[in-house]
């Protein structure tokens, strides 16, 4: 495996710093919301992780298309990295939403359209790894993964749009709400914490994807060595 690039080391340090700043802005800098109290602060991480979660699923679909066209295994590694990192972040999103829902809606979970589509999206990508494990042939596995992420990628825009298309109790943060929906309003300081959170999670996402791609290269190398030794 190649030595760690300097840029990746810088990105590691930047990720730790921006995560620290994002936490400070969310927990200390942003004012306490008057109706919900302190629990509203989980919203900054909830949105940040949701953003990179859904972004990664869309990126994986694009990487899947690129693999099907080029048959280059680098696209497969990129796709796996995007799905894995996004699945972790999207899991955090769902649990944070549930923690927020308990005092806000008086329940941990409800089968609201947004919550349902988010749960389905997460399950689709957990199944992706289980199914990949069951295919031995690397080429077949990559082709299957590419088609799967291409189809699974449809769930990301559906999850994003569902609160704008159906009647739901989930608040809308970005864009306009209709008469039946709750629109979340933010003060100036809340907006700073919110947008910095998005930026911080984007940096962390890129850093983790890069690490996961390098891990994928090492996995491939070990797989090839095993084949050579067993021959």
């Amino acid at each position, binding site marked *: *495996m190649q030595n760690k690039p300097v840029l990746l080391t810088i990105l590691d340090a930047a990720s730790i710093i921006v995560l620290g700043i994002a*936490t400070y802005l969310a*927990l200390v800098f942003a004012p*306490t*919301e*008057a*109706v*919900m*109290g*302190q*629990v*509203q*602060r*989980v919203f900054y*991480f*909830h949105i940040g*992780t949701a953003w990179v979660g859904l972004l990664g699923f869309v990126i994986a679909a694009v990487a899947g298309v690129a693999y099907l066209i080029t048959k280059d295994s680098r696209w497969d590694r990129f796709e796996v990295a995007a799905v894995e990192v996004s699945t*972790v972040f999207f*899991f*955090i999103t769902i*649990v*944070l939403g549930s*923690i*927020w829902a*308990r*005092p806000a809606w008086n329940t941990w979970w409800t089968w609201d359209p947004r919550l349902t589509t988010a749960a389905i999206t997460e399950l689709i990508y957990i199944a992706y790894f289980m199914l990949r494990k069951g295919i031995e042939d690397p080429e077949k596995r990559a082709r299957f993964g590419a088609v799967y992420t291409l189809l699974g990628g449809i769930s990301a825009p559906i999850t994003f749009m569902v609160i704008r298309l159906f009647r739901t109790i989930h608040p809308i943060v970005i864009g306009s709400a209709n008469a039946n929906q709750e629109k979340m309003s933010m003060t100036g300081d809340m907006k700073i914490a919110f947008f910095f959170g998005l930026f911080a999670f984007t940096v962390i996402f890129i850093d*983790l994807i890069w*690490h*996961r791609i*390098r*891990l994928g290269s*090492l*996995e491939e*190398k*070990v797989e090839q*060595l*095993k084949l*050579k*030794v067993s021959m």
Partner: protein
Amino acid sequence: MLLETTPDTSGYMIAGYVFSFVVMGIYVFSMYLRNANLKRDAETLESLQAEEAKKASSPKKK
């Protein structure tokens, strides 16, 4: 007159942030572990390959 007070939901907030950091920490640690294991596997396999190559190239004794 009714006075509305902000509810104390700090326990939920703490739980949310602790959960986020624990999950991110576990993920980073799992990546570190997988990387270390794969590096060890690669080294072992490379030494095996080198041994096999050495055996194949050395003349057979009668």
